[in-house]
């Protein structure tokens, strides 16, 4: 896959860089913009960001690996983020994730995000989604689902399979 930054994205990034007195401070916003655009942060984007902001690629790569939110690989069309922090854990988030994995044929023992072979689904555990009162919660792409039951989970899977 050849990597290129479209002019509109580049213009947006150039504008972003002007928000900060120090150029390097814009790195996080650059990475967000790249993930928004490409769905993940490819290695070339790290190199591009470093070049643009006068950094070494390793400086930017440190950021990418530090924040689990930045993805280095593409994720499935339906990205299921199951909260595993205290309230959700008590309300059965482990079972919920297990259920997703089982239905999709994914290995629930791996702690990294798991994507199905057809690229339709990614399931991962995330830290607190800040909705402890309605545990267990799941984020499906940008939507927050509350008090998620197995039935609800199956509905998510069914709509994602379409």
């Amino acid at each position, binding site marked *: 896959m050849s990597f290129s930054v479209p002019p509109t994205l580049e213009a947006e990034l150039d504008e972003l860089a002007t928000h900060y007195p120090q150029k390097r401070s814009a790195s996080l916003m650059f990475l967000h913009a790249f993930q928004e655009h490409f769905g993940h942060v490819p290695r070339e984007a790290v190199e591009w960001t470093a070049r643009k902001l006068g950094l*070494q690629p*390793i*400086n930017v*790569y*440190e950021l990418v*690996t*530090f924040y689990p939110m930045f993805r280095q690989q593409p994720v499935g069309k339906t990205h299921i983020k199951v909260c595993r922090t205290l309230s959700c854990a008590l309300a059965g988030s482990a079972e919920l994730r297990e259920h997703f994995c089982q239905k999709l044929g994914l290995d629930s023992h791996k702690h990294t995000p798991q994507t199905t072979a057809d690229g339709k689904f990614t399931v991962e555990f995330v830290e607190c989604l800040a909705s402890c009162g309605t545990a267990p919660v799941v984020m499906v792409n940008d939507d927050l689902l509350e008090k998620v039951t197995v039935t609800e989970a199956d509905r998510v899977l069914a709509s994602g399979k379409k």
Partner: protein
Amino acid sequence: MSNAPATTAAPPPVEKIRIKVDGRDVEVPKLLPNWQGKLEPTTMLQAVQIAGGEVPHYCYHPKLPVAGNCRMCLIEFGTPMMGPDRKPVLNPDGTPKIARSVLPYEPQTPRGAIACATPISPGMELYPSSPATKQMREAVLESLLINHPLDCPICDQAGECKLQEYSVEHGQANSRFVEPKVHKPKAVDLGPRIVLDDERCILCTRCIRFTRDIAGDDALGIVNRGSYNTIAAWKDGAFDNNYTLNTVDICPVGALTSKDFRFKMRVWFLKETKSVCSSCATGCNITIGSREGTIYRYEPRDNEAVNGPWMCDAGRLNYRWVARADRIHDVYVRGVKSTWETANREIHALLGRAPEGSVAIVAGARQTTEELYLLKKLATRLGALTDSIAREGEPDRLLVSADRNPNSNGARLTGIAFTEMGIQLPKIAEGIAAGTIKTLIVFGEDVTKHGLGADLLARLETLIVSDILPNATTAAAHFLLPGCAHAEKRGTFVNTKGRVQKFMKAVEPPGDARAEWEVLHEWVHQVTGQNGFSTIEGLFNQMAREVPAFAGLEWSKLGDTGVTITI
């Protein structure tokens, strides 16, 4: 009580602070040089060192910016207690009352401070050997060892590992850790000369700081998070500058290893010899690690006046030629294997009857100062033209000099070469062509590459060559004499700034090879009739008396780090 002598040069005017270290009164300078030599408030760690103690540490390095991340240097301390009137509270005996630092919510528990980054203040009391300090060290070590693979038997760092040393000194014998260890990448190809074992790494970031702040190549970083933190370069093999191997030296554990040295030799078998790098005119101080006549590694040796604690990779790895199989092992007279006795007898007779001006000498600026001095003596007696050959390369901003000869200034000061090296070579060539120069003595240079081609050499009646490795000049020699690498003899080099530095003998020379100064001593004695010294000490001292630039020097006064003279 008096204070111990300061290990670091104190600034003028020295403002002192009085503190207590383990109950002893100590006076320490208020400011001391930081890693860049700028004055900064003295830290607890420096104060304890001045008091003659040592605070264990991993991430702190005197020549790197302070990071304060390993927590190994935590110590218990106290400061004078202040009353509400901001006056010191006194004990019944009149001494100031000390408030030990404690956790605010748990006043029974001492609260340590990292000694590497905490400045001292007047009246402060440091307790580097208190039970609380010991407990802190134990806890930090236990935490550092949680995920450590404990593969000491096959680890290259074993024997010079701070984890091992501090575990013995400050650790506890048993591990309480029963969970599975976190596994991280092994044998990571960080750069062309460096292999990284991430499981052994304690994340002190010395390597990151070195390559960013000293070498100026921001190539390393910490990726991932929490227990999965690892040192990494952007790509495998990307850690490639001329100073990478210094990170192996400063790595307090076995994480960074040298591809050249790893798995070659257990470090405790190595004999350490103080020497000087011969790859350029900077003259970085080194320690040669050898065992049973084989050199295994060069390591930089701290010398504030020359190289600090660093050296370049090129110089460090430039030792293999010493053990090359094609070294000149024997004396050859006109192509036939001979002995020193025969060769020397003939050379003595030949030089003894040589008419004034019929001899020329080309001596490499890789020879020791003493050898160049003896050659100059010979040249004076014979009325010989002398010269050396310049060897140039690209300099860098840190250590590498453009002059790749280790002893150019030695050659100049002894009078073998002029300031502009090689200026006499055309005259020597002319003399040979005209037939006035009948004998040429060459020490450690291939003159065929410098204007004295094989055709010219063929016109000589006698060509005397001393060298280490074969080349076109040695091939043409009537007398071929096996010489020594600098690691095989003692002597001095004068570096580009006029630092006279001595080096010691690490290994024996191969075959019949002899130190050139020993041979030259005989020649000078036989040809000039002067008596000389048959020890390097005597020879150096004689040279210091006779050569004005070295006036006042003595071998014994050179010490391990040399003396700077005016050049």
